[in-house]
């Protein structure tokens, strides 16, 4: 996780410096900036197995996690927007107690932040023994609380734990 953040920052500023101070071969626009950043990251990624073996298969997972997160963000916004613009409420607000597999401070912080940003949910509090996260959710499919918990656990928590451990 730490290596991933450092490499991301190196690629980001490398791309910026290349286009601002170097003699770029391509016309500057957003697509080429992203392509150069991804290329720098790819080079860094190929050199990692010599000193950090597990990172080599973490980068694809990180990219798929970011894509999944952006997709969920857009879907959540469309659901809430549909509920705002139609006269009847379809939502059934519920407070669910989500059992946590994440244990360290950083994992719990990231998980609750991601939950707050996605499908109509707001994380309210962590219990004192750090085992349960209380989440205020708007949409429960078929009134099935277990299914909703499993969706969050298999969607976000599993992917996040694969990255941080």
């Amino acid at each position, binding site marked *: 996780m730490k290596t991933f953040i450092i490499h991301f920052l190196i690629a*980001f500023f490398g791309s*910026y410096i290349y*286009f*601002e101070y170097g003699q770029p071969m391509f*016309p*500057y*626009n*957003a697509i080429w*900036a992203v392509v150069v950043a991804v290329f720098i990251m790819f080079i860094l990624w190929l050199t990692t197995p010599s000193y950090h073996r597990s990172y080599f298969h973490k980068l694809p997972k990180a990219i798929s996690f970011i894509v999944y997160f952006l997709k969920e*963000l*857009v879907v*959540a*916004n469309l659901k*809430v*927007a549909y*509920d*705002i*613009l139609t006269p009847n*409420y379809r*939502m*059934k*607000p*519920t*407070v*669910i*107690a989500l059992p946590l597999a994440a244990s360290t401070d950083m994992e719990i912080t990231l998980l*609750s*932040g*991601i939950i*707050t*940003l*996605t499908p*109509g*949910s*707001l*994380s*309210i*509090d962590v*219990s004192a023994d750090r085992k349960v996260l*209380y989440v*205020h959710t*708007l949409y*429960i499919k078929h009134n099935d*609380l277990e299914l909703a918990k499993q969706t969050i656990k298999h969607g976000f928590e599993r992917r996040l734990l694969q990255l941080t451990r």
Partner: protein
Amino acid sequence: MLEDINFLLIREIISSVLIIIGVMFMLISTIGLLRFPDFYIRMSAITKGATLGLGLILSGMGIYFNEPDMFLKVVLIIGFTFLTSPVAAHVIGRTAVRNKIPFWDRTNLDEFKDYLHKEHNVHRDHERDNKQV
């Protein structure tokens, strides 16, 4: 072949579409802030709408101006907004629960009852804070 394409026109179209979608999301979430039934549902509507709307508007602006400086600042602002806005929403929601802001009457609170009874007897933040002042 490449010289025939009008890049400025393409950039303008893409950035206008992104900015219009972002403004629509912000407008819709503001309507939701006015018409949703209780505090917590309003909170979750306004957080997501504002975050996504701001991201779309800023990325449209970055694509329109097409300079490395502008793009750097845009990506940094989007990143920090995504980090900080859920933390603010979480803290405001937790403070509301501690201060006994009522839930909507159709809310299913089965799994939350233990927490409500236990924690509120032990410490009530607003009363303790008032005593210290």
